[in-house]
C-alpha cells in the first residue's frame, strides 16, 4: 500500500503535465474558434460591402452609410434585448406587439395631431412603463407558471398589438406635431444619426450588463445550465424575469423610435422586425440553446442583414428575391458555423 502510494506520487506529476499540454492545445483551439466565428461574419460583411459597391457606386457613400445606420438602429436596440433573452435559452416573440403598445402609448401622450399638448418626458416614462409591464408579465408567466417562453411571448405579441389597437381607437393617425421630434431619429449628431447614437448607448449598456452585472452573469449561467444555477442558489427566477423586462423595455424604446421615424403612430409600427431581429441574433452566432454568444456578434448580424437589404435594393434586385437571398445567407451562415463542429454524435435541435 505504502509502496503503491510512492509509485503513484512520482508519475502522477508527469502524466498531468501531459494532460495539461493536451488541454492547452484544446484551449488554444477553443480560443481560435471563438475568435474565428465573428471573424467569418466580419469577412462576409466586408464581401457584401465590396460586391454592392461594385454594383452601385451610390452604395458606398456617406449618405447611404447614414441611411444604413438609421435603418439598423431600431433592429439593433431590439436585438440587444433579444440576445439577452436567447442567452437564457428562451425566446421573445413579443417584440412587435410591445413596440406597437409602447409606440402608441408614447405618441398619444406626446403632442400629436389628435390634439393635446403632450406630457413630455413623462410620455417616455409611461410608454416604457407599459413595455416594462408587458415584459414583466412575460417573465412572470414564463417563470412562475412555467409556460414555454415561445408561447407566452407569442400570446403577448397579440396582447401588445391588441393594446395598441384599443389605444388607437377609431381616430386619425396620430401625427407628431413637435418639430423637434419630427425626423429626430435620422438627424445627424457628430455625423451619425441620433437613432444610432441611442443604439450605440444601448449596445454599450447591453455589453456592460452581460459583462459586469449580476443579471448578465446569472443569465449566462442559467443559459448554461438552469439546474446547476438553481442548486447553486442563484436567483434564476428573478434574473429571468429581469431579462424579459429589459428586453421588453428595449422593444418599447425601439417602438418609440420607430414611431418618431415614421412620424405617425400605428399599432403595426414594429411590423416585420421580429424576422429581422431573430435571424440577426442567430447569424451572429448566439446559440439558441442559451449560454453562448454575445451582443457584439448580434450587432454584426444586424448589420449584415441591413446592409444586405439595402444593397439588394440599391443593386436593383427584384424585391421578390430579397427574402430568398437573406434566407440563403442565413442558411449558409449556420451551415458554415456548424460545419467544423459536425460529428457523428452531434445533436442539433
Amino acid at each position, binding site marked *: 500500500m505504502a509502496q503503491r502510494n510512492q509509485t503513484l506520487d512520482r508519475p502522477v506529476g508527469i502524466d498531468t503535465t501531459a494532460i495539461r499540454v493536451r488541454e492547452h492545445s484544446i484551449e488554444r483551439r477553443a480560443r481560435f474558434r471563438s475568435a474565428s466565428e465573428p471573424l467569418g461574419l466580419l469577412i462576409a460583411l466586408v464581401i457584401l460591402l465590396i460586391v454592392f459597391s461594385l454594383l452601385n457606386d451610390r452604395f458606398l457613400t456617406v449618405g447611404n452609410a447614414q*441611411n*444604413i445606420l438609421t435603418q439598423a438602429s431600431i433592429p439593433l436596440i431590439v436585438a440587444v434585448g433579444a440576445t439577452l433573452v436567447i442567452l437564457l435559452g428562451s425566446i421573445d416573440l413579443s417584440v412587435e406587439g410591445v413596440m406597437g403598445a409602447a409606440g402608441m402609448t408614447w405618441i398619444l401622450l406626446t403632442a400629436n395631431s389628435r390634439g393635446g399638448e403632450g406630457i413630455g418626458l413623462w410620455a417616455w416614462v409611461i410608454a416604457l412603463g407599459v413595455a416594462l409591464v408587458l415584459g414583466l408579465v412575460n417573465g412572470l408567466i414564463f417563470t412562475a407558471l412555467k409556460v414555454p417562453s415561445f408561447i407566452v411571448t407569442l400570446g403577448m405579441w397579440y396582447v401588445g398589438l391588441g393594446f395598441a389597437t384599443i389605444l388607437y381607437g377609431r381616430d*386619425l393617425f396620430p*401625427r407628431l406635431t413637435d418639430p423637434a421630434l419630427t425626423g429626430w431619429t435620422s438627424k445627424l449628431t457628430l455625423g451619425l444619426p441620433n437613432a444610432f447614437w441611442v443604439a450605440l448607448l444601448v449596445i454599450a449598456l447591453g455589453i456592460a450588463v452581460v459583462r459586469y452585472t449580476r443579471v448578465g452573469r446569472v443569465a449566462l449561467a442559467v443559459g448554461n445550465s438552469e439546474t446547476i444555477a438553481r442548486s447553486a442558489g442563484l436567483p434564476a427566477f428573478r434574473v429571468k424575469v429581469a431579462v424579459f423586462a429589459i428586453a421588453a423595455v428595449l422593444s418599447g424604446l425601439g417602438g418609440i423610435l420607430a414611431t418618431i*421615424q415614421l412620424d405617425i403612430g400605428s399599432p*403595426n409600427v414594429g411590423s416585420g422586425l421580429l424576422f429581422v431581429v431573430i435571424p440577426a441574433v442567430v447569424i451572429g452566432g448566439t446559440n439558441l440553446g442559451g449560454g453562448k454568444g454575445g451582443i457584439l456578434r448580434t450587432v454584426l448580424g444586424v448589420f449584415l442583414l441591413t446592409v444586405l437589404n439595402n444593397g439588394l435594393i440599391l443593386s*436593383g434586385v427584384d424585391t421578390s428575391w430579397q427574402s430568398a437571398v437573406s434566407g440563403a445567407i442565413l442558411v449558409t451562415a449556420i451551415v458554415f458555423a456548424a460545419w467544423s463542429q459536425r460529428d457523428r454524435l452531434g445533436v442539433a435541435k
Partner: protein
Amino acid sequence: MSLTPQRSRAGRFAALAAVASLALVGCTTTAGESTGEDAGPIAKEDIVLVASVINTTNPYFIANIEGAEALAEELDLPLEIVDSEGSSQTEISKIQAILAQGKKVVMFVNTVASSDTPTIVDAVKRAGGYVSIWWNKPDEFEPWDQGDNFVAFQKHPGIESGRCNAQAIGDALGGKGNVVMFPGVADSTTSQTRVVGFKAEMEENYPDIKILEEQPSNWDPVLANQNARDLIAKYGDEIDGVWSADDGMQLGALQAFEDAGLLEQVKFASDGLYPDTVKLMQEGYGDDAIVGETFHRGYMASAIGLYTAYLAATGEIDPSELPKEKRTSFFDIKCVTPDTLDEYAQYDEPGAPAAFVKQLIENGPWDTEPATLVGGGGPEVLD
C-alpha cells in the same frame, strides 16, 4: 406517445373523447342545414347588417365602419362588424360564424384577398343572405353568374385613380423628371389597376417622365418608409416625384423624404385623400409637396355596398333585372389638387357619414354625389 398502462388508459380515453366530440360536430351541424338560397325578400325586422373590414387600424377601414354605422342608425337595424385582422381565414371564419347563427344578413365585405370572394359569396348564398363585395374579386367571378344573393361587386376604378395621380405629378413636374412608385400588396388587383393607370398615363401623356423603380410596400407605412429611405440613398436628388398606391404608404414615404431634406424638391401623389393628408395639404406641407390625390371615402363605400344589398334583400330591387354595370360597378373618384381641396372638406366634417347616408337613401345607391356610378359591367381594363 408512449405506452405505459396509465397513459394508454388516458390515451384510450382521449381517443374516445375525440370520437365522441367529432360525432358531436357532425350531429349539431346537420341541424343547421335548413336554410337555402332563393329565400325571397327578407322582412326588415329580421335583417342584420354586417360590415367586414380588413383591419381596424387603417383610417380607410375605420371609415368603412363609420359608414356602416351611419346606415344602421338610419335604417334602425342591428349591425355587426367583422375584423378580418388581415387574414383571409379569419375573415371567412368570422363571416361564417355570423351566418351560422341563422341571421338574415345584409353584408358588405371589403375582402382581404380577391380569392376570398367565391367562398364568402357561397356561404352567404347558402344562408340566404345578401352581400356586396368591395374592391377585390376574381375577374371572371361575376355577380350575374352567381344569382341574386351576390348583389353587386363595387369599387372605385383603379386605372382612373392611377391616371389622376399621374396627371398631378406630370403637371407638377412640368412633364419632365424621374418618379419612384410604391405599389401596395403586389397581388392585390386594387394596387395593380392603380399601377396600370399610372404607368399608362405617364406613357401616353408624359413621355419625358421616367419611372425609376417600383418597390411594393404592402400597404404598410413602415415598409414604405424603409423602402423610401433606400431609394433615396440609391437615387438621391434624382427623384422628382413619388407615387404611392395609398395614403398610408405615402405618409411613410413623406417622412423619409422629409428626413432626407428632400421634401421640398419632390412632388407626391397618392390615392385616398386620408384626413391626415388633407391636413398636410392644407398646411402646405413641404412646400406643397402633395400635388395630387384622389378622393373617395370608406364610409361611402360601405354605405353604398350595404344599401345595395339591403335593397335587394327587401325586394326593392331585383338584382337579376339590373344592368351589368349595376352589378359590377365602378363609382366615381374625384381628382383632387391643392386648389380643389376645399370642396371636399364637407365630407370629413362630423356627421358627414350620416348626411351621406341620408342622400344615399334619397337618391339610391348609384346616384349619390360624390360617388356616383361611372361605369362597370365587367373587369376594369385600360381604355
